[in-house]
C-alpha cells in the first residue's frame, strides 16, 4: 500500500544480507523488517540517514553512487568537494596535492562546496529577519533531517528555511561561471563528492525542487581512497596551483556542529545525531521549547564529519577543519573579493526552494473510521504481545509488529511468545512454528546443525 515516491541511495544487497537485524533495530523511522532471512526496506519511511549502513556487519547495505566514468561524458568535469574531505587527510598533506590527484583522476575543475556559504549566509539572515512567525526556524542543510521532519514531524515543515544548501549554490555558481565563458551547458558535468547517503538522495530526488543543479554524485570514501593512494605513491603528473580562493573561516566549519548556529542571530541551538534530533523535535512540536530562534539539526553525530562515507575519525576531522578555519582567520588567507560574489544577484534569485510538503507515513488508514478500527486492534494485539521488543518476529518491536499485523503485513503468530502459547494450547504444532520462523529468518538459520 505504500507508494514509491523516493529515490534512495541506500540499497540492501540481498545476496550479501545475513538477516542479522542490526539495521532493523537501529533504524530511527522503523523502516526495516526481516523477511525470508533478509532485510527489507519500507522505502517511504526511509530518510537516508545511513544508520543502517553504519551497523551492517557484512557490508550488505551499499550507498549507490554514479559510475565514476560518467564524468567523462562531459568536456568540463567539476569536482565539488565538501570541506570534510579535506579534513580527512593528515596535517602534512597539502591541499595542492589533493587537487593535483583529483585532476589526474580526470576532473578539469575542483571547487569546494562551502563557497556557497558566502551567498547563503546573508540569504539565511535575511529570511530569518523577514519570517518571525514560525519559530524556531530550522536549517535546510541536512537532507536527512528534512526528510525526517516530512515523515515524522509534519507539523514542523513550515519551520524549515526554504533555501538551497551551500553545495547547490556552489554548483549553480560554477555552472554559470563556465557558461559565461562561452561554454555550452551540456558540456558541463558537476559531480558532488558526498560524505553521506542523504545528500545523494537529495540530488536524485530533491525536495521542493524539480531538478538538482548537480549532475552526479560520487562517494567520498571512494574519492578519499583514490586520492590518498595517489598522494602516498606520489604519482601525480604535476602540482596544480590550488584555487587561489580559499574558503572563509565560516565556510570551512559550516558543515560541522555549530557551523550554522554560530552565525545566526538570536537564540540558536545546534543538535547533532539523529536520535538527539528526534528527541528535540518532539519537544519543539509540543511547544515545550519556546523562544528559540534557529535550530541547526544534523543527522550525524559531529555533523558531516561523522557522515557515513567518512573514512577517518570524526573528531580528528573536526579538529583539522577548526585549525584550518583559525589559520584562515589569522592569516587572512581568505581576504579579498571572491568570484562567487560577482554572481550574488543571480544566485540570491535562485537560492529559494519550493514548498516542502509533509508526507507523514504514520496514519494507519486514510479514513478516520478505519484508522480507529485499526488502532483498536493494535491495542488488543498489544495486550497479547510480550512487550519484550526482542525482534524475533522480524519487526523492531512489539508495537511495530502489532501495526504490521493490522496492515496485513504480518501475522500474530510471528511472535515467538505467541507461538509458545499456541503450541501449548494445541493451536499450532512445533513444525508449524518452525516453518513460521523459517519464513522470517530464512532456511539457513533454522537448519543449522546443533
Amino acid at each position, binding site marked *: 500500500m505504500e507508494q514509491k515516491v523516493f529515490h534512495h541511495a541506500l540499497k540492501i544487497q540481498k545476496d550479501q544480507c545475513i538477516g542479522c537485524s542490526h539495521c532493523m533495530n537501529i533504524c530511527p523511522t522503523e523502516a526495516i523488517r526481516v523477511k525470508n532471512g533478509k532485510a527489507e526496506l519500507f522505502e517511504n519511511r526511509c530518510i537516508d540517514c545511513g544508520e543502517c549502513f553504519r551497523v551492517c556487519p557484512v557490508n550488505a547495505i551499499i550507498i549507490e553512487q554514479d559510475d565514476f566514468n560518467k564524468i567523462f561524458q562531459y568536456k568540463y568535469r567539476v569536482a565539488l568537494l565538501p570541506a570534510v574531505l579535506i579534513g580527512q587527510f593528515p596535517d602534512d598533506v597539502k591541499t595542492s596535492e589533493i587537487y593535483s590527484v583529483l585532476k589526474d583522476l580526470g576532473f578539469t575543475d575542483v571547487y569546494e562546496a562551502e563557497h556557497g556559504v558566502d551567498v547563503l549566509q546573508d540569504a539565511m539572515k535575511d529570511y530569518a529577519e523577514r519570517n518571525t512567525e514560525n519559530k524556531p526556524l530550522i536549517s535546510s542543510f541536512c537532507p536527512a533531517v528534512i526528510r525526517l521532519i516530512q515523515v515524522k514531524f509534519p507539523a514542523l515543515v513550515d519551520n524549515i528555511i526554504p533555501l538551497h544548501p551551500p553545495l547547490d549554490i556552489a554548483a549553480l555558481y560554477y555552472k554559470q561561471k563556465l557558461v559565461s565563458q562561452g561554454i555550452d551547458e551540456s558540456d558541463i558535468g558537476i559531480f558532488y563528492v558526498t560524505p553521506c547517503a542523504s545528500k545523494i538522495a537529495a540530488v536524485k530526488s530533491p525536495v521542493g525542487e524539480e531538478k538538482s543543479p548537480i549532475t552526479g554524485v560520487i562517494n567520498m570514501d571512494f574519492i578519499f581512497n583514490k586520492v590518498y593512494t595517489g598522494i602516498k605513491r606520489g604519482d601525480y603528473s604535476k602540482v596544480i596551483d590550488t584555487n587561489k580562493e580559499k574558503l572563509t573561516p565560516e565556510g570551512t566549519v559550516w558543515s560541522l556542529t555549530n557551523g550554522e548556529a554560530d552565525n545566526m542571530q538570536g537564540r540558536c541551538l545546534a543538535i547533532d545525531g539523529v536520535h538527539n534530533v528526534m528527541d528535540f523535535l518532539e519537544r519543539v512540536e*509540543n511547544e515545550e521549547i519556546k523562544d528559540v530562534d534557529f535550530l541547526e539539526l544534523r543527522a550525524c553525530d559531529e555533523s558531516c564529519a561523522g557522515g557515513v562515507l567518512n573514512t577517518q575519525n570524526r573528531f580528528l576531522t573536526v579538529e583539522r577543519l577548526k585549525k584550518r578555519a583559525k589559520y584562515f582567520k589569522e592569516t587572512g588567507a581568505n581576504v579579498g573579493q571572491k568570484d562567487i560574489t560577482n554572481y550574488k544577484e543571480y544566485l540570491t534569485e535562485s537560492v529559494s526552494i519550493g514548498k516542502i510538503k509533509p508526507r507523514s507515513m504514520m496514519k494507519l488508514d486514510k479514513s*478516520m473510521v478505519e484508522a480507529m478500527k485499526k488502532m483498536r486492534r493494535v491495542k488488543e494485539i498489544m495486550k497479547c504481545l510480550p512487550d519484550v521488543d526482542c525482534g524475533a518476529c522480524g519487526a523492531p518491536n512489539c508495537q511495530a509488529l502489532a501495526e504490521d499485523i493490522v496492515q496485513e503485513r504480518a501475522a500474530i503468530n510471528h511472535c515467538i511468545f505467541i507461538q509458545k502459547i499456541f503450541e501449548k494450547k494445541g493451536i499450532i504444532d512445533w513444525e508449524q512454528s518452525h516453518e513460521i520462523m523459517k519464513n522470517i529468518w530464512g532456511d539457513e538459520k533454522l537448519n543449522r546443525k546443533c
Partner: protein
Amino acid sequence: MHFEFDIEAGDFSKVGYASSQLKKIMKQLVGDHKIVKRVVVALYEAEVNVVAHAYSGKVIIDINTDKIEIKVNDKGPGIPDIQLAMQEGYSTASEQVREMGFGAGMGLANIKNNTDEFYIKSEVGVGTSLTIIANLITE
C-alpha cells in the same frame, strides 16, 4: 477510543508524558497535522499546570471520528479567581517553577486558544477540572 494517563505532581522530568502519548495516537489517526499539534500543545500546557500546582492529576481522553475530548482533573489547591487566571501573563507559579522555564502565565489562555471548546471548573481546596474539545473534521 478511550485513554487514561496519570500525572505525577511536582515531577517536571515527566511532564509531557500524556501529551507525547496522545501525539503518537493522533498521528496515527488524524491526517491534519495542524490539529494534532494544537491539541498536543493544549494538553502539554494542562499537564504543566497539574505538575506545577496540583497534588495529583488524571488525563482522560476520548477520541471519536469527529472530535476529541480531553478531561484533565486534578486534586489540588484550586483556582480562586478563574477569570484572573485566564489572563495572559497572570501567574502564581513559584520562583522555583519559573526558574525551570515554566510559569509564564500563558498556560490557560494558551489551552483555550488551541482548542475549539474549553471549560474549566475549580473549587478552592479541592481541585480543578478542565475539559478540552477539538473538532477533527476540517473539510
